[in-house]
């Protein structure tokens, strides 16, 4: 990547972050939603830890990584809406006729989404702490969770951007998201210990990137982390994120075929 591309990435990221900070309603909604999940799921499932074999002391301890990861998925999967808006407004076309590199344009999306996901995750972790959650893995474990949620968010953000550029229909993004969010979350260990899941679900979860983020995060956050699990799932997420960003940069080409 050339220095020019790095500069451009920085300017474009700045633009996007400013835009978010200037839309307080959007900001509040993205931050309030995970709080509601934390409260609702926390109250609803409080007693599941009493099930034999659940293996966690308090449900809140178990729930915090679940909400962090679910929020990372649900907020990033709407990234395509922003891209659509930029297409409709003509902003994307304006940038595409300047010397800015396509890589810088896509990098800026990734950076902005990464920053948002990280901020959201930190807030959830802090709220959990306030509510009495315990993080035996310490700061190192929390950093792994943060990184895993950012990588997972990148996967969904890039995919959503690609869909936005290819289909250019809000309805498609809404449809795909409503269809995917809950199955992806519930076919993972977000809210329920894997040991208590039906075995077919457990097998599906093994191939679910949402679950990779949870396995990596939870393992690193435990008192006795299994670093093999952390590295294998984290590595898979990284590979998937790189592939998704590459693919979504490629979609500029097919977008330009249709303008």
């Amino acid at each position, binding site marked *: 990547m050339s220095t020019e591309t790095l500069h451009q990435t920085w300017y474009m990221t700045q633009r996007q972050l400013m835009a978010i900070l200037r839309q307080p309603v959007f900001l509040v909604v993205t931050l309030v939603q995970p709080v509601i999940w934390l409260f609702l799921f926390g109250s609803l499932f409080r007693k599941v830890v009493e099930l034999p074999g659940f293996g966690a002391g308090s449900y809140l301890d178990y729930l915090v990584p679940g909400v962090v990861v679910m929020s990372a998925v649900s907020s990033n999967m709407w990234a395509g809406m922003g891209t659509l808006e930029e297409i409709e407004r003509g902003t994307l*076309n304006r940038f595409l006729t300047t010397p800015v590199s396509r890589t810088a344009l896509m990098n800026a999306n990734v950076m902005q989404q990464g920053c948002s996901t990280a901020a959201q995750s930190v807030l959830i972790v802090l709220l959990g702490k306030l509510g009495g959650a315990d993080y035996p893995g310490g700061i190192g474990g929390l950093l792994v969770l943060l990184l895993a949620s950012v990588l997972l968010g990148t996967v969904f953000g890039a995919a959503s951007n690609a869909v936005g550029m290819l289909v250019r229909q809000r309805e498609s993004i809404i449809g795909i998201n409503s269809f995917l969010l809950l199955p992806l979350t519930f076919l993972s260990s977000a809210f329920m210990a894997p040991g208590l899941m039906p075995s077919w679900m457990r097998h599906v979860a093994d191939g679910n990137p949402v679950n990779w983020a949870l396995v990596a995060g939870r393992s690193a956050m435990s008192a006795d982390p299994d670093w093999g699990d952390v590295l294998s799932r984290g590595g898979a997420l990284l590979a998937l994120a790189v592939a998704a960003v590459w693919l979504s940069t490629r979609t500029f080409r097919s977008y330009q*075929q249709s303008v």
Partner: protein
Amino acid sequence: MTTAAPAVEADGLTKTYPGGVRALDGMGITVAAGTVFGLLGPNGAGKSTTVKILTTLARPDAGTALVAGHDALRHPDRVRRAIGVVAQKSGADPVATGRENLLLQGRLYGQRGAALGRRADELLERFDLAEAGGRLVRTYSGGMQRRLDVALGLMHRPQVLFLDEPTTGLDPEARTAMWEEISRLAGEEGLTILLTTHYLEEADRLAERIAIVDRGRVVAEGTPDELKGELRGDAVHVELRDTPDEVDARLLATALGEFAAVREVTVEGRRLSARADDGPAAVPHVLAVLEQQGAAVASVTVARPSLDDVYLRYAGRRFADADTGTGGTGATAVQPAASAGGAR
């Protein structure tokens, strides 16, 4: 006209969109450096597609495009540095201020530091946005937004400026102000402007040369005066009371055609058009022939040739009829309205 290499040279451009819509069909234009060139045509004629190809946004299926001496297909990066683009849609970031938009635009072209800030302020001043420069663009009026768009296109001092329908959607006052601004730009040393419009009046007023575009290719080209001059004489428009059927229409055209003072007779619906060297003198004869044929007349208009007539002649359709898109008819009415009322 300068003897320097043309600023834009496009030849044989064709483009079919996915879904089979043929947008360009052998489009070709040559724009001399330092001039204002107008692409005139109804919505869907292929003007915007041509601009998208010349500005490296879209790729043609076939054909060549040289912009500022660079091949737009093989070296789009070089073309991008040399051009400024004001697209149909604004493209300015609504949640940034006008000044921030300009600064970012300049940075993308490698402008930095104090020179960058000076250039942004200079353009804000020039486009009467100095006071609004610190406000978010979403608070701007349509005219202000459009002026900012032009300023964005000029930020890096391009050699060729593309203005795609620069006044569409503006109220008459803002349109006049934009016309003045474009005229001023045209006077700037070395700047070439390629303007697309579906307003006949706009092309007539701003462009030194005009290419009339219809169904993806150029059907006529020249200076506005040349184009109008080729028509030799006045247009006589007759509104009939009833729509003649196909046979009657042909009979009317033939009967009038035999009459030496008028030529190029066309009948479209209730509207009959012909051309005459001396329009007012031809009117009584035309009316006599129509009466003979039993066609009742609702109104007669005589007009000096307008670009609308040029369009009719080359595209075989009236401009307003061809312009099926939104907002077209209201604007194209400007031209005939000026000549309503009969004799010159």
